[in-house]
């Protein structure tokens, strides 16, 4: 017997054509799936009643795998075959993963491919395949709960996820047999869950303190459109750190030495976690623990003491908050709502401090662990077409600027960071040398002036440019970023119409730490960058001048120059060549000026010669009009 849901008026579907859609929060620690049933958004539970699925996959020697709670215990027993926090590896190269400093017990397979693969008992798997295994379990749960095949899903990703990470997430979904209707930024999903999209225009802050990561995002709702104004965070700060603060306190109080064993440490972490959770409800809690020597220690931790322990950590989250406000170019009193996301925002002190900082009562009504999935579920319901009068277009912003390499290894920004997507921008470039018939386009991501300090995303070539003098060709380069944050670049020579393009699917992308580092570096190296740019520009100018004078001398130097004049020019040329190799941009400028001076007469003579040549056989009168 079919089980039916209540539709919106006029939206009943024909039998077997239900537009079943779910939202998936594919988290670092836990994943959830949510849907809208009979107009109510809710997360879906498994047979045991668990809503959260630990994002853990345990690969077995028989080629199969276990996902979630079943896999969790294996993480300590069989760490090599139990993959945790696979999200941190999505869209990353092996170097990226190692650079994050997280110690991973996995054995990576040596391959030429840029996509790292982990060797497990069941075979070798990439992060995309491992994520797909998690998604498959959620898909099964959703289809069992909704009684049919899913039409589509919305998957949430952190706002700072780059191209490669988004593409990997999509690939994982495809591999799991899911049709991704859209990737949605996590903060945007949280705002949707609270129905902020139905409210008045305004600026909202999403404060997301999870188990191991912290993110803060500022969204602006404008004409029914969500725009992410700015994001910041700390990828190594979360509830685990709050627990660790309590552990340190217990160890100090109980006189436990720092070199405590792994086993004892795990027990301490568990006790600390229990104490933390107890203090959400009550003003004090008893902690009893058995020491290694068999004796017991008993202590009392009050809410006040706990607050003191965690205050420095909460303060650490407020610095990124301040930064996003500055990045977004807003003031505190422009903020309408603050949405709390992540289990750690259950801690009363966190709510209090965040409320104080933003001077507003944060929204906490929806379970902070489920709020992102619920928002994704609501969005999936809309995208599947179950709500006719509610077309919502959600916008995100670019986390880092996109540009290309110009002469001298300089970064030319085409789309600036924090530009809302989807976006398309074009810029015109030209050729550097006479008769240049091809142009290499190097796509770069980052904020620094020199390309070496930024991230290379892709390279491609525009060939078949008709031979012209330097600077005559008009090459229009267009950057397009779609609603999912994926970039495509095309180049077209306007006079001839030759075209070339590339879909940027970098083999791996940037880590959020790297993004943060790159942003920081761009600020702290601002002066250096300006100087470097000045130098490179002078060097490029020197090359251009040298190129021009060399080709002129080769053409008519012998006819127009005396030996004496020739040696003066040669001296100026070699001086410019020499200073060009140095780092003194003023000296280069001077050498260019000197060469200019040395060649002034010659240039005049060339001009005369070319005019004579052009006028030869014509009468003066012909030129008078």
């Amino acid at each position, binding site marked *: *017997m*079919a*089980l039916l*849901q*209540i*539709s919106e008026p006029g939206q009943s579907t024909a*039998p077997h054509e239900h537009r079943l859609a779910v939202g998936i929060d594919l988290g670092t620690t836990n994943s959830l799936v949510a849907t809208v049933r009979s*107009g109510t958004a809710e997360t879906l539970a498994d047979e045991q009643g668990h809503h959260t699925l630990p994002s853990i996959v345990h690969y077995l020697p028989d080629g199969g795998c276990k996902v979630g709670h079943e896999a969790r215990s294996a993480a300590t027993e069989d760490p090599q075959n139990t993959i945790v926090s696979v999200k941190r590896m999505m869209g990353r190269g092996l170097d990226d993963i190692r650079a994050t400093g997280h110690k991973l017990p996995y054995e990576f397979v040596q391959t030429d491919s840029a996509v790292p693969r982990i060797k497990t008992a069941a075979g070798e798997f990439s992060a995309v395949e491992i994520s797909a295994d998690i998604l498959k379990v959620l898909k099964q*749960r959703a289809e069992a*709960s909704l009684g049919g095949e899913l039409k589509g899903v919305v998957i949430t990703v952190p706002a700072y996820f780059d191209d490669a990470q988004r593409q990997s997430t999509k690939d994982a979904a495809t591999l799991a047999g899911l049709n991704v209707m859209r990737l949605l930024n996590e903060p945007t999903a949280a705002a949707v869950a609270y129905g902020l999209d139905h409210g008045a225009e305004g600026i909202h802050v999403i404060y997301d303190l999870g188990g191991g990561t912290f993110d803060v995002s500022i969204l602006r709702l404008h004409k029914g459109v969500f725009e992410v104004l700015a994001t910041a965070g700390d990828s190594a700060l979360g509830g685990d750190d709050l627990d660790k603060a309590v552990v340190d306190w217990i160890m100090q109080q109980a006189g436990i030495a720092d070199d405590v064993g792994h086993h004892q440490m795990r027990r301490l972490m568990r006790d600390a976690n229990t104490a933390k959770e107890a203090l959400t409800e009550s003003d004090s809690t008893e902690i009893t623990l058995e020491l290694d020597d068999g004796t017991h220690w008993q202590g009392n931790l009050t809410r006040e003491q706990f607050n003191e322990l965690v205050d420095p950590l909460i303060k650490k989250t407020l610095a990124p908050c301040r930064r996003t406000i500055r990045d977004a170019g807003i003031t505190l009193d422009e903020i309408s709502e603050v949405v709390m996301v992540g289990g750690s925002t259950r801690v009363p002190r966190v709510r209090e401090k965040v409320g104080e900082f933003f001077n507003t009562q944060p929204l906490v009504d929806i379970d902070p662990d489920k709020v992102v999935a619920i928002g994704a579920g609501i969005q999936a319901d809309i995208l599947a077409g179950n709500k006719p009068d509610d077309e919502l277009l959600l916008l995100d912003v670019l986390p880092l600027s996109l540009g290309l390499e110009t002469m001298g290894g300089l970064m030319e920004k085409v789309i600036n960071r924090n530009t809302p997507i989807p976006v398309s921008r074009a810029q015109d470039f030209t050729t550097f040398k006479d008769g240049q018939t091809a142009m290499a386009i190097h796509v770069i991501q980052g904020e620094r002036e020199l390309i070496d300090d930024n991230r290379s995303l892709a390279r491609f070539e525009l060939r078949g440019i008709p031979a012209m003098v330097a600077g005559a060709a008009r090459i229009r380069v267009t950057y397009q970023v779609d609603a999912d944050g994926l970039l495509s670049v095309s180049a077209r020579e306007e006079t001839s119409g030759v075209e070339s393009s590339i879909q940027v699917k970098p083999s791996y992308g940037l880590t959020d730490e790297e993004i943060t580092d790159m942003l920081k570096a761009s600020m702290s190296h601002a002066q250096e960058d300006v100087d470097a740019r000045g130098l490179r520009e002078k060097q490029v100018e020197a090359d251009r001048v040298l190129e021009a004078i060399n080709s002129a001398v080769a053409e008519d130097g012998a006819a127009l120059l005396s030996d004496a004049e020739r040696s003066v020019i040669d001296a100026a040329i070699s001086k410019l060549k020499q200073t060009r190799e140095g780092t003194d941009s003023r000296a280069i400028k001077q050498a260019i000026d000197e060469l200019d001076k040395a060649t002034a007469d010659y240039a005049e003579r060339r001009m005369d010669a070319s005019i004579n040549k052009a006028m030869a056989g014509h009468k003066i009168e012909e030129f008078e009009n």
Partner: protein
Amino acid sequence: MGITLTEPAAQHIRAYLENRGKGIGLRLGVKTSGCSGMAYVLEFADELNEEDQVFEDHGIKVIVDPKSMIYLDGTELDFGKEGLNEGFQFNNPNVKDACGCGESFTV
């Protein structure tokens, strides 16, 4: 005769209506489609049409248009679970034959 609701069905409808924040009740109906001829309509109701019949059970208004009433008279709306799946079920005495899944039927 008329339309009735079981206690679990009434509870869920009440919660859904409350969550939705608007609506005067629940609209039941049938439309021609599906693999066995007729299909059920189950929607929130925001307005009442002139010919509509209204039944009240467990404090919830159930609204049916007269054409559908011919096929629905005597129906009890229930809420059930099958494994993880849950939803509303029509216990309709008029049904002679239903398709395998029970989503569409003939009278």
